[in-house]
């Protein structure tokens, strides 16, 4: 193009100055014009007359932008752009097509092949130059190479992965470890289906604000996207506990803030998984173990945190889940060999499993009786120290304190805290969540649902059945028919759920009530329950736990014992303790919550007694829980001793788990009064110590007798011994009397049940529960956490048709 000079326009001092453009056109007239325009804009221009020559120029140096004709001899523009986009070095180079092709399908093809703009000839030179300049100012970068997500302005997944890799390397070189978290919203798919891409964009904008706020609180933290609608948060130089705390706060922040999509306020459930940078650096890629060499630490961290988020998505309890190596999908188990050696190993495992609990019982006796006796005797023999008298007095004092507390509970229960007066309305929208494992509840779930729909509640009542089960059952058709007939009923299958906690958490996503009652599927609340519950919640309480009454007490002696025991618990202990300690507890079923609080609190499925755990979290944060003995719901009790053992073992282990977690937190809580802290100490500390103290009379008396030369030499009528014995022996009858006096009429009428309960509990049942409490602690310490969903016997009618279901274990009363 020698001989042609552009003189009319001086080069402009623009951001394009010094940038290089490759102009590809076989028409000199066009080529000259474009070159002149770009040079006038300050750019250096290289030319080529067709696609092939353009590739040669590109091999010499990659320009900042390409302006190309489409119709050219040799290699045309479409072939050129395809080659350009296939090469990593030129993949992100902006390309503007300049063509006389007027057919819209050509423009579509060009853009799909990777062109960034499509300008038709004849063109206006200033506009063309402006378009090219725009491509240089805001380069169209392939999605996977974007530094920032164009929708949210957060770091792109690839950019975040790079940052993550850099932080991981820094940590490996001696710095403090950090973490990468992935956050998503469990309801994203439903939100997309309902509101489309626009809804997702609105959600993203709001989540971005929460993420950026979380990142702002940590030095060096960066928020970004993680692909698939997920978000990521890189937390460098942050310890595991701090990570967990920050992410939990983030989850709670998202729940508190709610989101607004298309003008509708929605409750979403954040799901957070995270991985420490050191773990990510040393782990395999979860989806492709062979990809280690290719995938960088950053990509791996995103994938691992995503795996952890998948795990969190099963629970919906707001708890961030940390990635651990066992989350990597395990290799398929080898088929059973069926050989003699394998069979013997299996038999041995079975026997070991069967003997485990008897061995644990023996161990508790060793620890609770033999070990203290040996200690007393050893001190006496080898150090000349006699601790027998002191130990005796301590044991006596402990037993008296316990007995006094139980008597105090009973006396206070005679005048329980009453609910605020019924204001007569207006009554807000209410919801019930019935959690069910459907195969166990199939026989009566329809009856249960109908009972809930028949509630006498003046406001609107929604009934959510949140259930799980392995296969679709015929009863689901019946449930859908009810839902079609009565829109208040919402059957919700929770796929992937394995616990009541997951079902309740999932149910919260569809709950519309201002308050929500949580129930197991065998519960039949009194018709006026929701109205009464609102008196508490409308009067300033956050949670109210009702009185669970056994409705199958005539099924067996175990059920009768449980029926009276439940009266002792729900009519006496709970309301008495609520007055004594200044707080109540939620027992897992027949409990009513303010919905916004339950959304924030959730049920933590990793706790064996998620109900007690949730109660204590509420109380520690200053929430108010009431216990109302007149808020009735009737349920089924286990009918065999084995079922009761399994149920109570889970409760006892759960209580121990909760005690270990909450006792210190309760004392550290600024929200609790001293009385409440002492109450927590009794509930969480003393309750766990007492089963061991109850054994201590044996080693102490044995030691005293041994030291005295035989039991015949002991003075068995010392006043303290007699008084203590009388006082502690009065506890059982006292509890039974209180229970009878405060029981619901249908149980109170069963006088024989109370007499048998007094006998059974005095000589067997109380110690049975103490044994369970001690063994549960051994199991918890040894990490044995079998969740036994105990099948309870199904009473069979004369026709031979089962008439009652085998309910799941209920709450930890």
């Amino acid at each position, binding site marked *: 193009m020698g001989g042609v000079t552009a003189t009319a326009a001086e080069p402009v001092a623009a951001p394009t100055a010094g940038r290089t453009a490759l102009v590809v056109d076989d028409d*000199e007239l066009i080529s000259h014009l474009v070159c002149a325009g770009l040079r006038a804009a300050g750019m250096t221009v290289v030319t080529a007359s067709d696609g092939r020559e353009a590739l040669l120029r590109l091999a010499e140096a990659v320009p900042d932008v390409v302006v190309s004709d489409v119709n050219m001899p040799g290699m045309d523009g479409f072939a050129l752009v395809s080659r350009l986009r296939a090469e990593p070095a030129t993949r992100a180079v902006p390309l503007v097509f300049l063509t006389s092709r007027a057919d819209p399908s050509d423009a579509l093809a060009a853009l799909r092949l990777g062109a960034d703009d499509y300008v038709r000839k004849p063109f206006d030179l200033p506009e063309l130059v402006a378009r090219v300049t725009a491509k240089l100012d805001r380069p169209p970068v392939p999605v996977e190479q974007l530094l920032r997500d164009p929708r949210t302005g957060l770091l792109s997944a690839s950019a975040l992965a790079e940052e993550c890799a850099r932080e991981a390397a820094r940590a490996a070189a001696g710095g403090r470890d950090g973490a990468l978290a992935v956050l998503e919203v469990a309801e994203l798919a439903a939100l997309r289906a309902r509101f489309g891409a626009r809804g997702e964009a609105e959600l993203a904008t709001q989540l971005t604000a929460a993420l950026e706020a979380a990142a702002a609180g940590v030095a060096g933290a960066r928020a970004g996207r993680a692909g698939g609608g997920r978000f990521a948060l890189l937390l460098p130089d942050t310890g595991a506990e701090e990570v967990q705390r920050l992410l939990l706060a983030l989850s709670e922040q998202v729940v508190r803030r709610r989101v607004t999509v298309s003008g509708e306020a929605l409750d979403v459930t954040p799901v957070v998984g995270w991985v420490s940078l050191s773990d990510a650096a040393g782990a395999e890629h979860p989806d492709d173990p062979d990809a280690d060499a290719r995938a960088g630490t950053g990509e791996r961290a995103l994938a691992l945190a995503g795996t952890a988020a998948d795990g969190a998505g099963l629970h919906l309890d707001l708890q961030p889940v940390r990635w651990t190596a066992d989350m990597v999908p395990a290799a398929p188990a080898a088929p059973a060999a069926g050989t003699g050696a394998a069979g013997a190993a299996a038999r041995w495992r079975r026997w070991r499993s069967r003997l485990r609990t008897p061995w644990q019982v023996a161990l508790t006796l060793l620890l609770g009786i033999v070990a203290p006796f040996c200690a007393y005797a050893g001190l006496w023999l080898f150090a000349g120290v006699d601790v027998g008298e002191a130990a005796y007095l301590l044991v006596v004092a402990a037993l008296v304190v316990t007995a006094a507390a139980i008597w105090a509970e009973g006396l206070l229960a005679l005048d329980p805290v009453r609910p605020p007066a019924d204001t007569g309305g207006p009554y807000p929208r209410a919801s019930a969540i019935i959690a069910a494992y459907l195969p166990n509840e199939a026989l009566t779930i329809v009856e249960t649902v109908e009972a809930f729909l028949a509630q006498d509640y003046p406001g609107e009542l929604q009934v959510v059945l949140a259930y799980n089960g392995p296969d679709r059952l015929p009863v689901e058709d019946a449930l859908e028919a009810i839902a079609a007939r009565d829109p208040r009923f919402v059957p919700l299958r929770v796929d992937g759920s394995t616990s009541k906690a997951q079902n309740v958490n999932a149910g919260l996503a569809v709950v519309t009530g201002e308050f929500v009652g949580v129930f197991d599927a065998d519960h039949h609340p009194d018709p006026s329950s929701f109205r009464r519950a609102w008196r508490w919640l409308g009067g300033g309480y956050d949670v109210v736990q009702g009185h669970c009454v056994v409705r199958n007490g005539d099924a067996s002696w175990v059920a009768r014992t449980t029926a009276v025991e439940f009266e002792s618990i729900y009519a006496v202990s709970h309301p008495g303790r609520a007055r004594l300690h200044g707080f109540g507890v939620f027992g897992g079923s027949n409990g009513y919550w303010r919905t916004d609080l339950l959304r924030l609190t959730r049920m933590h499925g990793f706790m064996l007694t998620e109900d007690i755990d949730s109660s204590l979290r509420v109380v520690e944060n200053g929430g108010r829980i009431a216990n109302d003995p007149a808020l009735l719901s009737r349920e089924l009790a286990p009918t065999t001793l084995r079922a009761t053992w399994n149920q109570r073992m889970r409760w006892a282990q759960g209580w121990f788990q909760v005690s270990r977690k909450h006792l210190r937190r309760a004392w550290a809580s600024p929200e609790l009064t001293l009385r409440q802290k002492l109450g927590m100490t009794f509930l969480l500390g003393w309750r766990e110590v007492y089963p061991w103290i109850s054994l201590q009379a044996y080693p102490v008396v044995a030691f005293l007798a041994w030291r005295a030369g035989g039991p015949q030499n002991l003075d068995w009528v010392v006043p303290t011994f007699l008084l203590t014995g009388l006082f502690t022996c009065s506890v059982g009858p006292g509890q039974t009397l209180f229970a009878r006096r405060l029981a619901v009429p249908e149980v109170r009428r069963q006088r024989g049940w109370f007499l048998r309960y007094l006998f059974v509990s005095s000589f067997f049942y109380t110690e049975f529960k103490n044994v369970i409490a001690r063994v549960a602690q051994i199991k918890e310490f040894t990490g044995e956490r079998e969740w036994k969903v105990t099948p309870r016997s199904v009473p069979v009618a004369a026709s031979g048709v089962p008439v009652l279901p085998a309910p799941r274990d209920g709450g930890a009363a």
Partner: protein
Amino acid sequence: MNEVDAMRALTADLWEQLRPLVRARLSQLDEWVARGQGLAGRAEAVRTAHNLSGSLGSYGRHDGSRVARELERALLEDASPALVVDLVAALHRAVDA
């Protein structure tokens, strides 16, 4: 002079410099017409008309661009030789204007 005006001036300046090149292309068309508009050279004539329709308009010669597009269509549709002669003549006038 603002940026747009500068570009327009640049375009006009270039047009004057490149007008001989356009005329040379028109001469090639003239030769092909003089040879009787045979098959040989038709594809080249179509290409020249196609390029001129794009380039003349880009230089602000919109009449020339429109005539060149009509010529391209006439050649593609195998229109009458007389029409082709008329369109080439019109193209000359537009370029010389």
